[in-house]
């Protein structure tokens, strides 16, 4: 950390450098063949579950609405296939919890007529800011970087807040994942139109795309395409986890810090992921709801690490088969990246809007190793991108001293996992911090 020569910008507080293992970076996106059956959870986003508007036995088209948003912080859910609605039941999703989901038996691929399925680039933006936001809301677009926060909520800036920058997150700092990278390589023009749509909706004059320098090809493409654009810039960033975190990206690109408990809008910034930006383009210009996404299937023993264009609701097993089957030595399957993804227990778990990758971890790396005493090395403190003292938060949470933990800003933790990653004693730091945060939230709601 000490004598590194900084060529590119990066965030200043903490951070780590895990091996990036981008095995599938050179593999083009291929559409996955249609599954026989999809399972579409009615909650794939942060906020309230959507309300189901179909019944068992209904025939639906691809792109038809299945469930409408309940309240503002919620999202529409569309059918990703055509076919007959089966049972509507509780299904375990990638979070490990059971949620209501709609099963659809696939028959043909009959799309809603209003959806433009051609590849032609539509550059002209005909809609007013209000119409843009409502089209994004109708299409059920959510943040595709992993958190799945409804995009229309982010675009509705609270009164009194002035936004001067739109940041486009093309960082993809999670090791192994390449979905965003491939979208940037294969759909750059569409992403630029998407950026212009978002800028119009927000009324901002400046946008910056932040891309880590392990994706030099993507940086080059955008630099080429944006040569004559005054308002949209590209910034190469040093590879540094968790740079894709909203707060870290804002610090890296603008040297601003979101105050504790605040939102990016408090410092005049809105951040959207590149994948989301592409979905915004499709929603606004092509009238296409969010029914498919790019998912990376990867892992050290995976035969063909791939990037698939997958219909939402496709079971994980279909992707694994397409990537050459499940390797013998698989010990853990993670939905998402290795740092923040969730381990799944079941191969029927459906792909959701926020699923950016499926990672297969070999048995010898799957379980945690022996825990030693804290040796007070201070590595967790140096690694924390929020400048917290993780080893102390662990002790406080363990003792149930939540009040003290709150004073030490435990709620600022973004759960990036850097502390647990660097701990030489393998201490379960983040596990206990999560416990402390959950207990605090429970106390609040009581």
């Amino acid at each position, binding site marked *: 950390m000490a004598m590194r020569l900084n060529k590119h910008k990066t965030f200043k507080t903490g951070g780590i450098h895990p091996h990036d293992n981008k095995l599938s970076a050179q593999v083009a996106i291929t559409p996955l063949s249609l599954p026989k059956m999809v399972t579409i959870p009615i909650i794939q986003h942060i906020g309230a579950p959507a309300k189901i508007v179909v019944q068992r036995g209904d025939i639906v088209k691809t792109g038809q609405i299945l469930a409408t948003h309940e309240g503002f912080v919620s999202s529409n859910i569309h059918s990703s296939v055509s076919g007959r609605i089966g049972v509507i039941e509780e299904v375990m999703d990638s979070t490990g919890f059971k949620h209501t989901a709609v099963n659809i038996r696939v028959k043909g691929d009959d799309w809603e007529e209003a959806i433009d399925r051609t590849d032609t680039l539509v550059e002209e933006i005909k809609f007013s800011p209000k119409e843009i936001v409502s089209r994004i809301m109708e299409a059920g677009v959510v943040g595709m970087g992993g958190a799945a926060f409804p995009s229309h909520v982010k675009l509705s800036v609270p009164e009194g807040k002035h936004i001067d920058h739109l940041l486009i997150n093309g960082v993809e700092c999670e090791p192994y994942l390449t979905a965003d990278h491939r979208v940037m390589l294969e759909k750059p023009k569409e992403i630029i139109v998407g950026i212009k749509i978002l800028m119009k909706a927000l009324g901002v004059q400046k946008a910056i795309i932040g891309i880590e320098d392990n994706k030099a090809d993507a940086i080059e493409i955008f630099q080429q395409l944006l040569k004559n654009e005054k308002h949209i810039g590209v910034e190469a960033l040093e590879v540094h986890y968790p740079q894709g975190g909203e707060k870290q990206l804002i610090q890296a690109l603008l040297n601003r810090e979101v105050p504790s408990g*605040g939102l990016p809008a408090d410092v005049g910034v809105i951040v959207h992921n590149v994948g989301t930006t592409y979905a915004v383009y499709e929603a606004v210009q092509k009238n296409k709801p969010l029914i498919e996404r790019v998912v990376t299937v990867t892992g050290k023993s995976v035969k063909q690490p791939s990037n698939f264009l997958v219909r939402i609701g496709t079971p994980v097993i279909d992707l694994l088969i397409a990537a050459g089957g499940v390797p013998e030595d698989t*010990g853990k399957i993670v939905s998402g990246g290795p740092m923040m993804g969730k381990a799944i227990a079941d191969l029927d778990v459906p792909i959701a809007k926020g699923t950016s990758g499926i990672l297969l971890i070999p048995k010898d790396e799957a379980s945690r190793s022996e825990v*030693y005493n804290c040796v007070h090395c201070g590595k967790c403190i140096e690694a924390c991108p929020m400048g917290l003292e993780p080893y102390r938060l662990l002790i406080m949470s363990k003792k149930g001293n939540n009040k003290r933990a709150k004073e030490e800003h435990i709620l600022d933790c973004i759960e990036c996992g850097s502390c647990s990653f660097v701990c030489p004693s393998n201490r379960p730091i983040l596990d206990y911090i999560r416990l402390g945060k959950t207990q605090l939230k429970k106390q609040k709601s009581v």
Partner: protein
Amino acid sequence: MSAGLLTVSPSPHIHTDLTVPQIMRGVIIAMIPALVFSVYNFGLGAVYVTLLAILFCVVIEYSIARYLLKRPASIYDGSAVITGMLLAFNVPTNLPWHIILIGSAVAIGIGKMSFGGLGNNPFNPALVGRVFLLLSFPVEMTSWPKAGATWSLDATTSATPLGILKDGLRAGDTVPELMNQMPSYADFFFGLQGGSLGEMSAFAILLGLIYMLYRKIITWHIPVSMLITIALMTGIFWLVDPTRFANPLFHLLTGGVMLGAVFMATDYVTSPFTHRGMIVFGVGIGVLTVVIRLFGSYPEGVSFAILIMNAFVPIINSYAKQPRYGSKSQRHKAYQEKLEKELTSTK
């Protein structure tokens, strides 16, 4: 997937390779050059003392954990081996075995296990052992064998450069006169001087430092801040009166400065967390070392300086904190005004 269930655990799902046993192994590897030089200079006594100290430390830690505390023995992490090695590095190569045994018992028993084992001791265990021996067996602990490869266990003894300096100054000699009785700087650098087992060769210790920096086991902050402080302080005194004070290079290359800066002060458990804290710690050790060397009654003060600064670590930790993300807006009015300006200028 063969028969068997998938592992399910919370994130993160990957972990650094630099675990406690790996780090301890790295430190042991980093100490080997100094040991090799010691064997070259002092003969087999160096190996004998080192192996004995390691053996005693490991056996004592195992016995205490197993039979006194009744919990699984913690020797496999390698920290007892390091304590043993560091204790050996800090004693003369002709030390009798029973003194080594006492030193190991104090280092592990009092210095480490009485506080709860690895990670809980406030003071560097090897230094606790060394200082205990120095105070209890001053004669044995300060009769060093003559350097220069005498491959027998009973060699003639000689004084250390720092001892010659202190005694000479007391007797009324001046520094330039005393310097004529000393080995050359090249001899200092490669370790041809009297002294404890592992502390003589700055060159060998620097090899260890480079290795540990390369493996990212330690950062530069403690050693560099400590060495610079010693160089600056002794440099000022030397400029003021070169007849009474030795030059900075002499101070850096003699005694336990190098060993202390690289292996003793950088001990994770007993040094501060943040880089800022480490610099405060390093500067503190440097100042105390120079004060003891120049004005104290002992010729050498590195061990005492490190132990004293160990006691300050909790205080340093509570002041030298990492700046919290988001605290900038609360800290600096200027930042807030600048932000306000940026936000309104585009309106």
